[in-house]
């Protein structure tokens, strides 16, 4: 099975191809079932690979299998190859696992949509690309997956292309990511120029032999790519807009899997990071700054999905904080738990929207606990997980990160802790506004303001629970969000994930030098921060029921970054573009060309006399001219 790792991405690829040809004929819901089956089969294949790898000695858990030569040119030999090791298999496990659940959920969620089969075409293509990204054995093949998921993200964000905002959001995502891709590409050039190969194993083995400045440059360029893909400062702006896509897409691509690709990449190259301490520090700071910054914005959003989008940015920031602190296991740990609870939050939000006819404004929700018991119960589990309440999964992984942050720098830890408080606050705010309090959707319904619809059509105006295909993934993800922390508990004998990932990260891993008391103290601080955030939200939104409280305009407008970018980049860029096209090109360059032509024409009318019309005269002129030139060249060249 280890030689058949390629089968894991190949299954969704097959699904994509079948759906491309026959998707329309299969229709609703068969197309969805086919797509789900393919990703489910990929999950089974991954589980098989996982157990086989587990059967090997820790030192032999890294298997490279080359399929065929892709781009062989001179010294550059790039193969289509797969690397099965603890890191890639962990990624593949949760990508296919969570992916299957979200595919299943989509069967119900997208039911009745005009583009039903097109949706699953894209979704399977995404699963394929994502699996290539994590399972590839070389930078370049990873880049193929990297760009593939980007393209699928673009296609799925602009899925409802008739709307005004969706295509614009898709385009913004693509272009912003391209800025990051610039970094990734130049990083690969530098890697090739330095190491003569783009294979992970060879590059990572040689990391120590290269000057620090080169490694630092490579790491920072790769990090630029990660910033784009994982929506960090300053390139995060595409992710909130990406919420224009169908909600399961937000769950799968913009929460659980694709956006973690940047974190994955940094963990993958951890031996390089170990040689570039300055870069690592920068990464930690960008991460924690993003975590804090996005959390502040999440506190003041009204759109149920936008809260979650900023929350995702913030949580990804935590992961980069972990990467920068050399805590790769903690980064992967949080990536996994985050995949569970954030996917669940999005799917829950989708379920709410489904039940409320695509309402997204939390201020027009409320009291849904009574009407949507499964959705609210599972959502509450996810809330407690992300808020960092023990023993839910998010507590363990976040605590792990904060411990490591403390070990690197107190300032990093402090900012991380404040972010934890904010996280607990904005998530509690969301839960209280949506599931508790007054049933404000009744007024909205009475006022007749029905939002733009797209999903399943229903006649009555009462919130309702979703079908089983949607409810089952919620329940399973809730279970995982609850116990997911169990893969790496901070108690002796419970470090499964750490032991499993150790061979991959041993070169880059930073040892933690904290006493037991410090660890307990820090954990207590984290719990206190979480409870404080929760309590504030409870007082404001549950007890006093003040929905509009604590929403400064600057946070509502997300610090005005979009407006800033528009003013500083977009407008000047557009002006430069217009200047190039309409002044430089048309007036200056083409003007010069036409000017010369006019000059020649004017001269020509004077010289018309020479045009006698006799061929012999022309021949004479041509011959003597050529002779003159030739004579000159021969004399010069000969002498």
């Amino acid at each position, binding site marked *: 099975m280890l030689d058949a790792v390629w089968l894991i991405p190949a299954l969704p690829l097959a699904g994509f191809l079948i759906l491309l040809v026959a998707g329309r004929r299969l229709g609703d819901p068969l197309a969805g079932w086919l797509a789900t089956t393919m990703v489910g089969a990929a999950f089974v294949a991954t589980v098989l690979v996982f157990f086989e790898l587990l059967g090997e000695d820790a030192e032999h858990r890294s298997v490279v299998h080359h399929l*065929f*030569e*892709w*781009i*062989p*040119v*001179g*010294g*550059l*030999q790039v193969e289509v190859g797969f690397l099965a090791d603890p890191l890639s298999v962990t990624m593949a496990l949760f990508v296919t696992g969570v992916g299957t659940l979200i595919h299943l959920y989509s069967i119900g969620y997208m039911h009745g949509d005009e583009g039903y089969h097109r949706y699953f075409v894209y979704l399977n293509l995404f699963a394929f690309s994502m699996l290539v990204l994590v399972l590839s054995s070389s930078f*370049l093949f990873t*880049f*193929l997956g*990297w*760009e*593939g998921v980007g*393209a699928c993200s673009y296609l799925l964000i*602009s899925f409802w*292309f*008739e709307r005004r905002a*969706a*295509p*614009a959001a*898709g*385009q913004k995502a*693509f*272009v912003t990511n*391209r*800025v990051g*891709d*610039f970094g990734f*590409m*130049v990083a690969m*050039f*530098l890697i*090739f*120029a*330095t*190491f*003569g*190969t783009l294979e992970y194993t*060879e590059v990572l083995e*040689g990391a120590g*032999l*290269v000057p620090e400045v080169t490694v630092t440059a490579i790491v920072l360029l790769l990090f630029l790519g990660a910033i784009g893909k994982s929506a960090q400062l300053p390139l995060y702006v595409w992710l909130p807009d990406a919420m224009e896509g169908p909600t399961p897409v937000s769950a799968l691509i913009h929460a659980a899997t694709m956006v973690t690709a940047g974190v994955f990449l940094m963990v993958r190259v951890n031996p390089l990071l170990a040689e570039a301490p300055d870069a690592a520090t920068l990464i930690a700071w960008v991460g924690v700054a993003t975590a804090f910054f996005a959390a502040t914005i999440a506190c003041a959003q009204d759109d149920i999905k936008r809260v979650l989008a900023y929350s995702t940015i913030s949580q990804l920031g935590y992961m980069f904080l972990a990467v920068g602190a050399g805590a790769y296991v903690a980064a992967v740990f949080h990536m996994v738990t985050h995949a569970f609870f954030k996917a669940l939050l999005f799917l829950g939000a989708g379920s709410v929207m489904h039940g409320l006819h695509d309402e997204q404004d939390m201020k027009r929700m409320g009291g849904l606990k009574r009407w949507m018991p499964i959705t609210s119960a599972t959502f509450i589990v996810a809330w407690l997980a992300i808020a960092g309440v023990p023993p839910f999964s998010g507590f363990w992984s976040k605590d792990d990160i904060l411990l490591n942050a403390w070990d690197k720098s107190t300032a990093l830890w402090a900012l991380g802790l404040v972010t934890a408080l904010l996280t607990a606050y904005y998530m509690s705010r969301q839960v209280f506004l949506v599931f508790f309090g007054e049933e404000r959707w009744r007024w909205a319904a009475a006022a007749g303001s029905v939002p733009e619809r797209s999903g399943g059509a229903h006649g009555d105006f009462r919130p309702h629970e979703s079908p089983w295909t949607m409810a089952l993934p919620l329940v399973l993800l809730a279970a995982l969000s609850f116990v997911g922390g169990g893969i790496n508990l901070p108690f002796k004998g419970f470090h499964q994930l750490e032991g499993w990932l150790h061979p991959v990260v041993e070169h880059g891993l930073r040892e933690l030098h904290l006493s037991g008391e410090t660890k307990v103290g820090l954990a207590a601080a984290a719990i206190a921060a979480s409870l404080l955030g929760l309590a504030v939200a409870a007082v404001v939104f549950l007890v006093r029921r003040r929905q509009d409280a604590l929403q400064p305009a600057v946070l509502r407008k997300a610090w005005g970054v979009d407006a800033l970018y528009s003013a500083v980049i977009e407008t000047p860029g557009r002006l430069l*573009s217009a200047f*190039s*096209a*309409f002044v430089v*090109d048309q007036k200056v*360059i*083409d003007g010069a*060309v036409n000017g010369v*032509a006019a000059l020649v024409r004017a001269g020509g009318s004077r010289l018309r006399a020479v045009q006698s019309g006799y061929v012999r005269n022309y021949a004479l002129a041509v011959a003597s001219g*050529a002779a003159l030139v*030739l004579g000159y*060249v*021969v004399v*010069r*060249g000969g002498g």
Partner: protein
Amino acid sequence: MDDFPYLTTLVMLPAVGAAAVTLVPGSREKAVKAVGLLFALAAAVVAVAVLIEFDTGRGSFQLVSEHSWIKAWGISWKLGVDGISLFLVLLSALLFPIAIAGPEVHRDPKGYVAWMLLLEAGCLGVFLALDLFLFFLFWEVVLVPMYFLIGGWGYERRVYAALKFFLYTMLGSALMLVAILALVFLHQSATDTLTFDLVALGRDQSLAENTARWLFLAFAASFAIKVPVFPLHTWLPDAHTEAPTGGSVILAGVLLKLGTYGFVRFGLYLFPEAVVDLAPLFLTLGVIGIIYGALVAIVQHDLKRLVAYSSVAHLGFIVLGIFGLSSQGLQGGVLQMVNHGISTGALFLLVGMIYERRHTREIAELGGIQKAAPVFAGVFMVVMLSSIGLPGLNGFVGEFLVLVGTFVTHRWWAVVATAGVILAAIYLLWAYQRVFHGQAEGANATFPEMTMREKVVMAPLVVLIVFLGVYPKPVLDRIGPSVSDLVRHVEERTDYRQPPVAAEPTHGSHDPALATEPAAGEHE
């Protein structure tokens, strides 16, 4: 060795076809097209036969057919193919039948088809000629049919565009003719043999450095206009926009490649020293083309003009790869010539189909087409992503090779050029968004879906876009030896050396310490 004169047949078939078409009565439009298509397809079959006969591991010229022509002047009919020209020949043989059969021709199909076939003969001749006189002859032959195709079958400003194209290219040709003659006579005075044979002229050279530089510049002027290299590009948007669809397909797909091919085949081969010395100049112009072409494309409101400017950017990449002077850069450049022909050819076909349906190319008048014509939109999407350079599709392989190949020799040029990759996403996606997304109004709401015939025309291009992106190895394996020979040719005649990391095949044992100085091979 097979004695069948493949290459002569290949060049002659379309020429004969052009004559044959003129014999068919013009009133029988179907017959005209059928005869023309028959000859173009026959040429395609011969081109495929050339591919089959081609010996993959060899870098030298193959299937050479040589016949003395004007003995007294040392001029011969000499054709040959190597890895560099092979796929350009195949590309031409593919695109011409498409340009003949694909788009609607609204007037005088007889003239259209005849000119097309003559044009094909000229293009194939340019790619195959190994005699400078013969090359120049074909080079000039190309000019005339294109002039008439734009002027006769184009849109509103066709006369202006055709004349501009003609004069511009003529100017370049004149310079090149002088340079060819000078080169030949200088060679004669040095070796006492009068010959126009490319291989002989390239092999034993004794040009003074300064002379070689001037002669190269004369050649380069002609090539640079054809490519076109910034700032000699303004004929292109006019010619592209005004030409009929088939003309645009050929113009972008094949004609522009005559320029880049000329740089590789004649520039590098005949004047290696000059190329090495002047590489920074051309690299800079290439990079300017990439950025500038993309910037200008962003604000175009005519869809066809937008695609035309995208060619300026894409050809910039090819120029970059050529003057990057590494195995990867050159192979990427050659591959990208083929890729650009496929992708941009396909884009022009699609834009032509939009024009047929809506009688406008104004982006502002289009919108929401995806709803009415999902297949059309899907095909456009694939072609667009190929043009943007999405990995897994053809454009990426060439672009990546060009950039990585330039990076190892001229680092900063490659870095700036890579930024152009961002811009490509902007202009194409934005155009796509405005044309295909949003609510369809008026005639856009009833935009007819792709017809069977259009699907047949697009299918080979889409298949190649995917195939060359996933498995370019068969192509790279054939381009490779010729490019290696060419790089060696340059290295033997100059003190330029390509960095070891680009040249040697490394198999896992590469010592990173050896390659930490990527600029080691950079000239001066």
